[in-house]
């Protein structure tokens, strides 16, 4: 089962900008194992903080552990005013697995060479999915470690350090919270956010922006996925063409033989380049869009929580007025109102900070990825040009 080495990983840091800068808490996933359907991540921590027992340690974690951590953070009232980094998506090997299955079925229709090449392509795809999932889990942890408040979360520290299986803890947490809050958020979402009357210009703008942007970025992600998939299909076609040209050339006994040989060879070389163009686009563009679709959702969740707090605040005001009218339970109502107000103001203050830094983060990430993608595309295109021109020269002279 594939594992990944350090050199692959260093090439991977793409979606988010360098989060792993603070020496006091450095986290990475140097290694991962894939056993049947389960991926086991090795979470490695290096720290100068005294809250941890050792300065350096590693623990094995599963995807479900990451989800547990995310959910507990979301459920924590104290963090209502923060954008909780989106949970990493479940490792999904469905696509390469299905393709591998189809390839197995079609084995009889292609030459041995063709089959081997297709298999190699699929194994590379499998590995790419693997790398992506490692990266996205790593980024999740690094977002936490670089956040002034979240990095101090006790559960986060347990996640990093606890050297036993977390599944027991996971079960307890489910029983305690029952996923109650999360379900609520999911069902009420847009309606509540757009319904509440906004008092603050900043949040009014953010609301409009986020609601629109989230639809658009979801759409862009889908379209980018389709584009990269089509690109991959073209690269795969090159494999078949190269293989057949090779067969024809083997039986060719005219002056055409050399041309066919070189032509076949060219397709073989080009398909590697095209494959890389497709996967770079996947990583730099599609992954970027995917990640920020999730992040935008996390930002919307924050808005939602604030909107709820505002609703509560308004309700508490109404309740206080009513109490004063009736001269009944006024102190209680005043207390309630004060609490709601405080909660609301805290959320608004923290929310404003979070959303501002979110925008900055987003802009930096887009810049980094778009620049890198452009540079890679140029590199690949130049490579293709030189390969092609070399081949044309040879053919013209032969």
């Amino acid at each position, binding site marked *: 089962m594939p594992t990944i080495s350090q050199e692959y990983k260093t090439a991977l840091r793409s979606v988010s900008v360098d989060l792993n800068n603070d020496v006091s808490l450095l986290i990475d996933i140097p290694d991962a194992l894939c056993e049947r359907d389960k991926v086991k991540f090795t979470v490695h921590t290096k720290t100068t903080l005294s809250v941890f027992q050792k300065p350096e340690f590693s623990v094995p974690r599963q995807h479900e552990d990451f989800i547990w951590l995310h959910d507990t953070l979301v459920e924590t009232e104290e963090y209502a005013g923060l954008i909780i980094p989106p949970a990493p998506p479940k490792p999904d090997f469905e696509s390469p697995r299905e393709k591998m299955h189809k390839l197995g079925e079609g084995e009889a229709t292609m030459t041995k060479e063709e089959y081997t090449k297709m298999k190699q392509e699929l194994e590379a795809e499998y590995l790419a999915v693997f790398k992506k999932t490692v990266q996205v889990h790593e980024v999740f942890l690094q977002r936490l470690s670089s956040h002034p408040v979240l990095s101090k979360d006790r559960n986060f520290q347990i996640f990093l350090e606890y050297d036993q299986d977390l599944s027991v803890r996971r079960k307890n947490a489910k029983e305690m919270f029952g996923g109650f809050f999360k379900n609520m958020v999911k069902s009420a979402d847009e309606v509540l956010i757009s319904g509440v009357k906004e008092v603050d210009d900043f949040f009014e703008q953010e609301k409009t922006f986020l609601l629109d942007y989230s639809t658009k970025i979801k759409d862009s992600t889908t379209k980018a996925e389709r*584009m990269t998939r*089509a690109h991959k299909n073209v690269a795969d076609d090159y494999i078949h063409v190269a293989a057949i040209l090779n067969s024809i050339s083997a039986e060719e006994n005219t002056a055409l033989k050399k041309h066919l040989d070189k032509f076949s060879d060219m397709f073989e070389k080009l398909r590697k380049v095209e494959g890389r163009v497709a996967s770079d686009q996947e990583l730099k563009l599609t992954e970027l869009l995917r990640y920020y679709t999730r992040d935008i959702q996390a930002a919307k969740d924050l808005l939602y929580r604030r909107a709820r707090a505002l609703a509560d605040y308004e309700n508490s005001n109404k309740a206080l007025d009513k109490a004063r009218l009736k001269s009944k339970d006024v102190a209680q109502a005043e207390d309630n109102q004060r609490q709601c107000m405080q909660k609301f103001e805290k959320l608004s203050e923290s929310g404003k900070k979070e959303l501002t830094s979110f925008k900055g983060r987003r802009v930096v990430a887009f810049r980094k990825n778009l620049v890198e993608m452009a540079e890679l595309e140029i590199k690949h295109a130049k490579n293709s040009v030189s390969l092609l021109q070399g081949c044309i020269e040879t053919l013209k002279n032969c």
Partner: protein
Amino acid sequence: MAAERDPPPPGDAGQARFGEAEDGEDLFVGAVGALESNPSSPEPASLPAEDISANSNGPKLVDSFLDDDPDDLFAEATEEVSLDSPEREPILSDGPSPAITPIMAPRIDSTLFDQALEEEEDNGDTFDICISVSDPEKVGDGMNAYMAYKVTTKTSLSVFSQNELSVRRRFSDFLGLHSKLASKYMHSGYIVPPAPEKSIVGMTKVKVGKEDSSSTEFVEKRRSALERYLMRTVKHPVMLKDPNVLQFLESSELPRAVSTQALSGAGILRMVNKAADAVNKMTIKMNESDAWFEEKQQQFENLDAQFRKLHASVESLVCHRKELSLNTASFAKSAAMLGNSEDHTALSRALSQLAEMEEKMEQLHMDQAYADFYLFAELLGDYVRLLTAVKGVFDQRMKTWSKWQDAQLMLQRKREAEAKLQYANKPDKLQQAKDEIKEEIVEWEGKVQQGERDFEQISKTIRKELGRFEKERVKDFKSVIIKYLESLVQTQQQLIKYWEAFLPEAKAIA
């Protein structure tokens, strides 16, 4: 065997072929004429110019007694009986026929033959003719509408009346031309360039007047195919001189080729004959004594299979590249919307630039898909059809051999019958019968010799044709491979330009 050879009885042969004279020409005149000046004598040189020779009707190769084997070529009844110029003698020049004709043809040393063919080929290289098909125009309305194309010929060859000619032709005219050429030449072993395929769906769309991209694409595909068809046809030294071809390129009016329609009487007869052919192929088992032919046949079978596979793969490539283009366009629109929605100014601008660039990419991918198609896929498609014609030519040879064998069998039977007569009991009828049988024997001896000559002739023609075919194939593919690679280079270079223009925009995000 050296007895005088009488020409085979003309009547039946004429009937079988010209049963459906739709062109309104007097076909029978030509037929009788051909058979009277039957060039079955061994001296090739002094043949009158009027001699039709094998090509127009191939009287030598359609022997009347084989009526139960309808030669499908002659079902294409719009063939003209035109008089060929003496320049096409090569088909006739039998050379001395071998003394005794054994059942099998003598083994021929293939390498020597190939060399000889090579030398002959080189003489045809001063070839100056260029045909273009252009300006498709819809004529008429509704289901009777059709596309008319302009066919322009630019040439310095003397066989044409002018240096530059221009006529208007419709698709069925091209099919009619092919039909005539096929009936004339295929049975002699010539590889007649196949006509482009009909397409009921494509044409219906055009007739109905759908002005969308798929019907313009269809028209362009057809136009290009017609052009390639004509160029291939004139590149063939024998076809180039055929009056049908000259008439096609020069005459302002052409009689309408009705029998090319699928459901016409001729069309149905074609289908019946194709079926008959298939059955015959299964039953004729030829004793191939010539290793060269055996090898070549196998080689072309393999090539055919491989080309079909390659064609399918390249068509898949075209399809996926078109999909890539469409998906890129779709993404571009989405990115533009995202850019509009983005509230950070610099990022918003960069996303809009990304969208613009992806729009350009869409066009680039589509252009490459067209190059994939017109340069690569269509060439392969043409060759798949050509290889079918090549295989057909091997079949013709087999048929020719079969006829020769049948003649020999018949001769055998007649001789046996003669021998039997020696011991007959009816003296009064005997002499008459003996005379009759003697006549028949002479007749069949002639047929056997003819059959053997035909077989040798077709074998020789095929060797030459295959040599030419391979030479053309090498030339075509060498040229296309380079052109195609150059198209890929162009696309990649354009890609570099687009990305290099975008890069500073991305870097400008602050």
